[in-house]
């Protein structure tokens, strides 16, 4: 039963996309959006059913843990402990298997993906990019959903790679076709930079996978998790570096983040939401799922550098935000900072840091999704996302939207009581208390710098609120067409707002999923 649900999660979106494309052009964009909404809604339900199923006591996680290790080491981070398991040979001569498995690390992310795609489809019911062609947009979103969910569910390195790559071309098309319609060359460049950098990264990652295969003779994540590759130098180190670089492009970590601001800024609203909310998570998820459990020793070797780059990302991203004049670019750069926190959490290799990274993953997906929705709403109303062109005093012109924007900004800067806090807090705690084999002094220094980065994060969000929401309404009279929060926007934003509060006030539901870390 669960197996079929998992297969459905991956296959249904693409099949729906094919059906949508097969429909005649005259079918209408509304119907396409409706179909997308229904399908992704069903998928959301399915993912929750799977998740619910897993929380039952029959989960074999604990005994398996004790089984393989007499006395477990302090961390067995990210190791795949499959609950639902589909495992059939695919390309025997290359050692590739079609192996899907999910556990409590991947399922929340799958649910997040389904949620965000659902919201994007709902949003598209009423609000679509000016160029139209909504049918194809919805279809591409669904294909992206397949890729992302597949990546989260893959238990074979090659399968992971394949799903990882599936999202690229659809995303490229989304940016290239539906992107910023004032800047044709810019959106083309942004889309191409995005796809080329990611492809290069993933090709390098593939080299790392092949090195693992050469060393261990298998691509199977479950097996590799149980028999990690020892040794922190030589081939494992090379593999770890290659994989880390590949995933760091996706994540993105400084200095490989350069594609991100353009891609986010030029993408349409739904594209930005998915890009920031879901696609960036592929990188961090890969690190948790592959680097840590498969190459623990090699990861330990590179962890301080990973942490260092993450912290640079936090600081550089935040500083860059301070000087941005474009709302979407600013939010994009804020993602660099937040993903830096996640990278730092992973690099600590400690349960706290990993819990934090996982939590921050979800929180960032929700909050940044909301932020991009709001930025899109503002951009739609002003036909630009340039702060100077939009003007100030949005509190007076669009009180509800700007109020929500303030809320989302506060959530994003890690205000305790909202979702962003727990992840960052746990990451910093992890950095204070990293795994035993890591240089603690280094990590404490990094923790302090990251803490200052948190202040900078607050600074740029407050600056955004000050430059955009506040101000003298007399100097910025309301435009005639500016309608405050529409009903569809309310429906789309509400789940994210509610989840932000819920995750902020009650982190235990999620954290208890990851006690095995």
């Amino acid at each position, binding site marked *: 039963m669960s197996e079929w649900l998992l297969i459905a999660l991956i296959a249904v979106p693409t099949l729906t996309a094919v059906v949508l494309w097969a429909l005649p052009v005259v079918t209408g964009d509304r119907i396409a959006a409706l179909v997308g909404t229904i399908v992704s809604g069903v998928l959301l339900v399915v993912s929750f059913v799977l998740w619910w199923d897993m929380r039952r006591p029959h989960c074999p996680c604990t005994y398996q843990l004790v089984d393989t290790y007499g006395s477990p080491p302090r961390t067995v981070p990210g190791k795949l402990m499959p609950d639902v398991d589909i495992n059939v040979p695919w390309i025997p001569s290359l050692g590739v298997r079609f192996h899907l498995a999910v556990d409590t690390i991947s399922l929340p992310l799958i649910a997040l993906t389904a949620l965000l795609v659902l919201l994007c489809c709902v949003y598209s019911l009423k609000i679509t990019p000016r160029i139209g062609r909504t049918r194809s947009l919805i279809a591409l979103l669904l294909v992206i959903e397949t890729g992302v969910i597949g990546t989260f569910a893959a238990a074979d390195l090659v399968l992971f790679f394949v799903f990882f790559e599936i999202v690229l071309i659809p995303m490229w098309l989304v940016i290239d076709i539906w992107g910023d319609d004032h800047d044709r060359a810019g959106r083309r460049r942004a889309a191409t930079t995005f796809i080329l950098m990611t492809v290069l990264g993933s090709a390098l990652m593939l*080299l790392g996978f092949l090195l693992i295969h050469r060393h261990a003779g298998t691509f199977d994540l479950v097996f590799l998790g149980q028999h990690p590759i020892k040794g922190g130098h030589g081939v494992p180190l090379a593999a770890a570096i290659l994989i880390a670089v590949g995933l760091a492009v996706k994540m993105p970590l400084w200095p490989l983040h350069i594609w991100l601001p353009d891609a986010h800024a030029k993408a349409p609203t739904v594209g930005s939401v998915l890009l920031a909310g879901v696609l960036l998570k592929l990188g961090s998820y890969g690190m948790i799922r592959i680097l840590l459990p498969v190459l623990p020793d090699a990861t330990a070797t590179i962890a301080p550098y990973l942490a260092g780059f993450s912290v640079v990302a936090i600081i550089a991203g935040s500083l860059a935000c301070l000087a941005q004049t474009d709302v979407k670019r600013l939010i994009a750069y804020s993602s660099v900072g937040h993903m830096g926190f996640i990278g730092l959490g992973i690099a600590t290799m400690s349960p706290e840091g990993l819990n934090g990274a996982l939590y921050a993953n979800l929180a960032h997906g929700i909050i940044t999704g909301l932020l991009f929705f709001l930025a899109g709403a503002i951009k739609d109303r002003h036909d630009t996302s340039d702060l100077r062109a939009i003007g100030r005093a949005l509190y007076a012109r669009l009180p509800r939207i700007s109020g929500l924007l303030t809320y989302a900004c506060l959530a994003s800067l890690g205000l305790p009581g909202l979702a962003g806090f727990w992840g960052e807090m746990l990451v910093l705690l992890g950095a204070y208390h990293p795994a035993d084999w890591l240089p603690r002094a280094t990590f404490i220094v990094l923790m302090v710098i990251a803490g200052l980065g948190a202040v900078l994060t607050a600074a740029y969000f407050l600056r955004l609120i000050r430059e955009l929401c506040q101000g003298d309404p007399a100097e910025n009279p309301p435009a005639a067409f500016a309608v405050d929060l529409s009903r569809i926007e309310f429906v789309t934003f509400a789940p994210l707002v509610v989840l932000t509060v819920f995750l902020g006030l009650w982190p235990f539901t999620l954290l208890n999923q990851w006690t095995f870390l």
Partner: protein
Amino acid sequence: MTLTWTDWQAIAVPLVLAIGAVAVLLVDSFWKSASAELRHTVVTLLTSAVILFGLVFVWAQRGGFKPAFCQPAVEGPAECSFVFEPLTAGLWAVLLVGGLGVVGLSTYRLLASDVPIGEYHFLLLSALTGATVLAGARDLATLVIALEVVSLPSFAMVGLRRDRRGSEGAMKAFLVSVLSTAVMLFGVSYLYGVTGSLYLTTIANRLTGLDPDLGRVAFAAGLFVIVGFAFKIAAVPFHAWLPDTYVGAPIEVTTFLAVVSKSAGVAGLLVLVTAGIAPDGSHLRTVIAILAALTMTVGNLAALRQVEAVRLLAWSSIGQVGFLLAPLAVGDAQAVVGYLAAYVVVTLGAFGAVAVVQRHRPGGLLTDYRGMVRSEPGLAAALIFFLVVLAGLPPGLAGLFTKFAAFQAVIDAHLGWLAIVMAINVMIGLAVYLRWIAELFRLPADDPFSVDIETPAVAMISLCAALTAVLSVLPSILFALST
């Protein structure tokens, strides 16, 4: 004197192909009473039947081992000039599928483009004969002769339209090829001089025990032979003839060059490498690896700014050859054949689509494809699929996995630097195809391409697309070809 023996089944396919070639020529020459259309149909059917026979034979005999023209050796096992073995079967399958595809492609444009039908099919079958012999050849003389049997008909085909562009293309291909033959033969002569034999196995055996001075000579000789093949498959820096010839030839012939001729060259080189001219650890493999790196980089880079569809495909095929050479450099026949198979199917499809467009838009510019997703969704979808496979990204899993196999071969052989170069080239290659795909998606188009596509073309392109889709879902077929 020495005794030779032959398993005639081994050479059945080349023989039938040769007989078919003659038959086609005769039918076309002496059956003047029939209309051109009828003759075209008959000739096409005849050619297809011959090639299909070959395919059926390969299918029936896969996994068999049949030597031909063998003689007992002074030392070691018998020396054979020609062998049918799983590797041969795989290569033949690829070559014959390519040939069949070209025949199919020729059905819907040949008459209009002023190409003599009988000669065309005769030359095609002759070249296929040479190609199949090449894939089974196990001595240098057979190898050289077979290579010439592939090459010479190809040039004739390039010039078959007897126009200005065709003659220039033929001339360029011819001159380069002749030079390469001379260089290769020069190498062969030294290889013979050093080892005293033309049999690949014997040469391989004797090369191992050579004294260092002669070893250097043998190395230079091997280099010359490889350079000769490098001309044929247009590896950089021996590639410059290719774009000009591709553009100059009729598009069917271009397809033939890209599919059959190139595969034959790769097959020959593969035979050379795996049979022992360049054994594991030999510097000749390093040379091939360098060639691979150069070829893929230059090919992809040059394709980056092309504005004509055929020229872009020409340069990108150079890039693809670079990727083919990478597993070849480490002697991984399985990866090479798999890659070749996917490349052949997809190239056929891509050229098929281009042929449709070029028939109505002879300019052949990328801008002719603008907005095709709306005006010709089916054709556009197929073309995008082929291009994505060539780039090696999902949903083109056939391309992805063949590239993956190439990576795996290279990594397993500890050629890290080559793997990095390949990774970079995946990116450049993607950039190349994306430009084209972007044109297809670009809306609104002033004058979108929209025609009634001929039924044979639809059938042909759908077949290629379907085959590619199957290979994408079950890539293991690709890698089962040569085992």
